[in-house]
């Protein structure tokens, strides 16, 4: 029983904190978000240089981390910094299938921040289901992919796309799926990029007989999809905790300093109690993320159940924290120039990525029945 960080991990956190404090203030962040790619490639390279992407990759694949705890630590800082660089898209969802497929060269480039990878999985008619894939892969003159993918995070700036596609089976079947590597600028790929509500970027991507290279055995890709999404879920849950911490701290500062009716807002008992309830729920969310991170290397059922619990709880608490932080601030939290609402927006919108709070509650229940069976 030990909740302290190892020396290496403490240094990793400090490195990230120092970089964000010194190099990543709110104007820098907004500027990066407004850039054509939706992030700053130079900053991304600097983050890579500091090892923040490598920390998401195990040593045997050339990184120096990659455990659940590493993912959670990095993403808590991503949340605290409201970072728009593609940690999730390229550093986790895009990178992990490459790691598992032993794509050493590509892994190195992505880890260095030189190549941007994106994970093209969700489809226009889908909704968080891991096997909801209608996009088809067929082998002839090499593998070719045809279909449409929706809301591909950083899909517009990506150099390589990791695409899920079906080689057999009905839509929704776990069997018959595969992951494929597609050149984003290659033939048969049409991308439409756009901004998202929370300041990030995504793309709709249509594949029309796009040449592709399988990652792993086509048709048996479900386990890797689940594993990759699981890493993403952990990352998002940890990011949510980081965002919550900032929302909490900002609100506390505001309550301590802002006066109304001649007293600091924080002197009003009703607001005090609501702050306590907020802090309590954040501690619960943090605990759920610790559990998910600490059992990330356990058996599949334990891992997936704890991930579902963490995503459910951070979604539930995240909405509460975002709404309460805005409400307790009042008008100023409705303005673009104040940092808080940007944190609140990201916190709420995380629930739209990789399964929302209801989806993961259902998943938790279903996994519980598998467990009992």
């Amino acid at each position: 029983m030990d909740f302290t960080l190892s020396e290496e991990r403490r240094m990793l956190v400090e490195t990230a904190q120092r970089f964000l404090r010194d190099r990543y203030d709110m104007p820098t962040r907004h500027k990066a978000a407004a850039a054509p790619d939706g992030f700053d490639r130079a900053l991304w390279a600097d983050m890579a240089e500091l090892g923040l992407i490598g920390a998401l990759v195990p040593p045997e694949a050339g990184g120096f981390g990659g455990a659940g705890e590493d993912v959670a630590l990095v993403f808590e800082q991503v949340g605290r910094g409201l970072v728009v660089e593609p940690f999730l898209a390229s550093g986790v969802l895009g990178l992990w299938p490459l790691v598992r497929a032993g794509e050493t060269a590509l892994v190195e480039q992505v880890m260095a921040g030189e190549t941007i990878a994106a994970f093209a999985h969700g489809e226009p008619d889908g909704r968080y289901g891991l096997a909801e894939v209608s996009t088809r892969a067929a082998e002839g003159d090499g593998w070719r992919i045809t279909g449409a993918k929706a809301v591909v995070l950083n899909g517009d700036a990506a150099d390589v796309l990791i695409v899920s596609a079906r080689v057999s089976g009905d839509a929704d079947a776990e069997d018959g799926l595969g992951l494929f590597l597609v050149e984003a600028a290659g033939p048969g790929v049409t991308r439409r990029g756009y901004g998202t509500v929370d300041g990030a970027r995504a793309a709709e991507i249509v594949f029309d007989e796009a040449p592709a290279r399988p990652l792993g055995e086509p048709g048996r890709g479900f386990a890797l999809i689940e594993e990759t999404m699981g890493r993403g879920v952990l990352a998002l849950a940890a990011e949510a905790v980081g965002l919550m911490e900032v929302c909490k701290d900002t609100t506390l500062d505001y309550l301590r300093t802002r006066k109304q009716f001649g007293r600091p807002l924080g002197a009003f008992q009703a607001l005090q109690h609501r702050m306590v309830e907020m802090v309590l729920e954040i501690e619960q969310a943090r605990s759920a993320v610790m559990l998910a991170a600490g059992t990330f290397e356990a058996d599949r059922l334990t891992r997936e159940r704890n991930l579902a619990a963490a995503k459910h709880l951070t979604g539930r608490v995240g909405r509460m924290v975002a709404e309460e932080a805005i409400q307790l601030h009042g008008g100023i939290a409705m303005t673009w120039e104040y940092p808080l609402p940007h944190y609140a927006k990201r916190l709420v919108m995380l629930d739209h990525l990789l399964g929302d709070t209801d989806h993961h509650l259902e998943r938790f229940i279903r996994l519980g029945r598998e467990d009992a069976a």
Partner: protein
Amino acid sequence: MELTYSPAEQAFRTEVRDWIRENLPPALAAKVRGGKRLSKADYELWHARLQTRNWLAWHWPVEHGGPGWTPVQKHIFDEEMIAAGAPRIIPFGVNMLGPVLIEFGTEAQKARWLPRILDGSDWWCQGYSEPGAGSDLASLRTRAVRQGDHYVVNGQKTWTTLGHHANMMFCLARTDPDAKPQEGISFLLIDMASPGIEVRPIVTLDGEHEVNEVWLTDVKVPAKNLVGEENRGWTCAKYLLGFERTGIAGVAFSKAALSHLKRVARERRKDGRPLAENPFFAARMARLEIDLMAMDIFNLRMIAAAAQGKSPGPEASLLKIKGTEVRQEASDLIRRALGPYAMPFLPEALDEGWNGEPVGPDYANTAATQYFNLRKTSIYGGSNEIQKNIYAKLALDL
């Protein structure tokens, strides 16, 4: 007890509905429903149309040109306007300043300003809120100093809705700094073209510009633009707060949102079936619908009491709280229903005349921004916390 409308009231509803159908341009209704940006001209057109029917100043007493509606008629009118996708009536002139002038204004003030409200000559904005004052109007810091036949005003106002459209502002300013906080305030009418006025946009968290800061530096205001007595401006402000507020619960908005939500939940799919059939989502929708059904009756109980001549009590605070909660919840579910397609946001799609291809369903673009934008409803107009304070004191005697 009778929950249905009388035949006369039903006939009134038909009359209103028919008139709106004939007079509201479909393109304008489509803009409102699609959450697009409305121009100043859009509002002015709709105000003018309503005025042709004498339905613009429907809060005003008959002797000043109001239609003399009962509270139930006002409620029906409000419901039909919202259900039809009509632009809202900009309230600052017609609903707020008008009644104050009618109650406290001089004959000269009434003669000058009331007709100009009705014919659209003036676009009024409201100068109440200040940075640092929040819901606490008594801590107002804008100063007005009498010098001969005018006041010199210095200070800063904020959250001035559509102030960038306005040529006039009604404004609270402190005229006696030594009086108790709520006293020594005066109610002034200020020409926005006066030297020393600067309007600065506030961009809100959804990236839109609707509210403003107004900076006043040595602004000269003619003394004849004082409404009511000097140092008694609080009386005017309070009068407005207590003024009958039809639609405070926003029931009509929530009903429109619920029916939109149902459509979205039928169209979006989860696990291969319509989202509306997913038990968790169905439960969220049903709880919302039940809350709304109850609030509808709660609202009608207040309207019926008003129709019997009872003045609106502190229950208005309860309706405001529940009304904003329900409306916010509806917007939350619409956002949720869209799943990943709540993420994309194309600000250009809000522009008039945009003809691009939407990302995802055509109603997806504004779902999340609408959710964030509606957070304001529990903050402004007396935050929900202030409403609870008021109700605890006035109704619960705590």
